[in-house]
């Protein structure tokens, strides 16, 4: 773990798009620090810059200005290949639409990142079994994603994100496609995993359930931080 325990540190991060000759300022001068083990929600109305900001934090997009440090490393100094490897080893992604690979079975989806990492087969299988137990999918390893409910698919996505033991989990509206009960169950599960493993969770969301369960809520408005509320 980094000495100062900061997983994410952004300084004056801005992103401007050029759309038909018009400059669109999606993110403006954001300074934000996320510490290890946080369970934080980035909230805001549509178009407030949440998604752009998370894309920049994860290295999926580059800022027009400013600096992003992840686990102490400056993302702008990395090559494309280094960024890929860095994301693989340090960030777990949970998407709104689950985005599992439909032709791979549950077990194969979950072990995919470990395969990229070169984790030995037996170790992979042990960890897959363990994480599927943790997310309540024991016995479903051989199923295809299309044979699972939305909630089950999102559990697989959570298992995939966490199994390689990344420092940071980025979750983009993870409950948006789920009914409220399933969403609440999943959030409780993620909160438990956060407490159990110490992994950092960062959500982008509109969902009040997530806001209620988050220990910190960062509100964006017009690409800027409008509020940063910490709860104990």
């Amino acid at each position, binding site marked *: 773990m980094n000495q100062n325990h900061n997983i994410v540190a952004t300084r004056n991060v801005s992103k401007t798009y050029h759309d038909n000759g018009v400059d669109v300022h999606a993110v403006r001068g954001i300074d934000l620090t996320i510490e290890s083990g946080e369970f934080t929600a980035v909230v805001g109305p549509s178009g407030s810059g949440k*998604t752009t900001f*998370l*894309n920049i934090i*994860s290295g*999926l*997009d580059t800022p027009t200005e400013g600096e992003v440090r992840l686990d102490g490393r400056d993302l702008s100094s990395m090559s*494309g*290949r280094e960024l*890929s*490897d860095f*994301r*693989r*080893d340090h960030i777990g*992604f949970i*998407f*709104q639409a689950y*985005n599992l*690979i*439909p*032709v*791979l079975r549950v077990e194969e989806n979950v072990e*995919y*990142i470990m*395969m*990229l*990492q070169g984790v030995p087969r037996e170790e992979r299988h042990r960890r897959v079994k363990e994480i599927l137990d943790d997310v309540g999918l024991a016995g479903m390893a051989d199923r295809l994603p299309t044979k699972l409910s939305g909630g089950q698919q999102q559990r697989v996505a959570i298992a*995939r994100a966490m199994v390689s033991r990344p420092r940071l989990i*980025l979750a*983009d509206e993870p409950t948006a496609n789920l009914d409220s009960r399933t969403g609440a169950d999943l959030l409780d599960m993620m909160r438990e995993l956060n407490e159990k493993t110490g992994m950092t969770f960062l959500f*982008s969301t509109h969902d009040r359930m997530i806001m209620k369960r988050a220990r910190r809520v960062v509100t964006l408005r017009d690409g800027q931080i409008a509020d940063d509320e910490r709860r104990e």
Partner: protein
Amino acid sequence: MGFYWKLAWRNIFRNKRRTIIASVAIGIGLAALIYSDALIIGMKESLIRSTTSSFLGEAQIHREGYRLSRDAELTIRHSSALLEQLAQDKSVARFAPRTQAFGMLTSPANVNSVMLVGVDPERERHLSQFDDALRQGEWLRGEARDLVIGSKLAETLEVGLGDRVVMTVAQVKGGDLSQEMFRVSGVYHFGIRELDTGMALVPLSKAQQMLGIPDGIHEIAVRFHHLHDAENPDLGFWDRYSSNGNEAAGWPELMPEMKNVLELTDFSMYILALILAGVVVFGIINTLFMSMYERMFEFGVLRAVGTRAGGIRKLIVLEALALGLISVGLGALLGLGTTALMAHLGIDFRGIEMTGVHIQELIYPQLRTMQFIKYPAWVILFCSLVGLYPALVAGRMKIATAMRKSM
């Protein structure tokens, strides 16, 4: 690689209908390539056989300089020993000695210049097809005054079976004229102008007597056990019989124009292969791009979770390879079935003149192992190379753009 291969294979079957359509289209292209190659081989063999079996032979032995000058004095050296050697030669199936000289054939109605060919009736019957081409009468039976001529020559001279004709030739030594009366014992028709209008066949001994060259032979026509031996420059035959002032030559040397025609046929095959390769290329590009654009989001996700651009490129190339393998399987089966059927039935082009040769037999497409190695390998190579383009496009994508809404 194993995991990407598994993923590629399964991805190919995500849209079964599209994969089947593309594979069938590519497979038909491959089958057409295999069939065309087999047909061209069959056609070439038929052309070669039609050319060589009527009279030429697959190879000939002459005295050095004879082919160019047609000088009747240039008879084959040590011909008796050579004939004995040919009888023992394992590569030789048939051979026939001949004398040849220009002469005049006269009937009560007309006169025509001809090539007087003295033949050993029994050996010639097995080597060339004069007896098969007879329309009237019989093949030479060894009677000294029998003469067989072509149908057009018979028309010109206005003679038929049993009619008398007079052959006049110059003797080899001294040039004195020698005349003999013959009876027309047979009339053949090949449909080949040179043979039907300008040749008169008589027994070898009679021709030798007229020319004043007892035991003299101008030409020995040879047929091998294997048709392609005549095209094999490494065959020991050429060295064995190109010595002591004699020379042996195969049909490609005897008929260079035919060799050129066949080379042109090979070139046509390459053009056809290129056209079919174009079909294959567009089939694969279309399928891969459709599949790729449908899955841009998915590629974005794969990249987001840590797959390197090279991994995505590898995946797409392997998908192209998988598509190629399926297509090759289908195409090879289709090609085998179609070609084997036609090779059994034969294609009837008889009576048609092709590149100056009268086709005399059914054309049978020829299956070769190489057709199922070379062309499928081409298709697989093409598939992989063509797959590189969408692979490069996908590898260069911006992750956030690919995912649109993205994270």
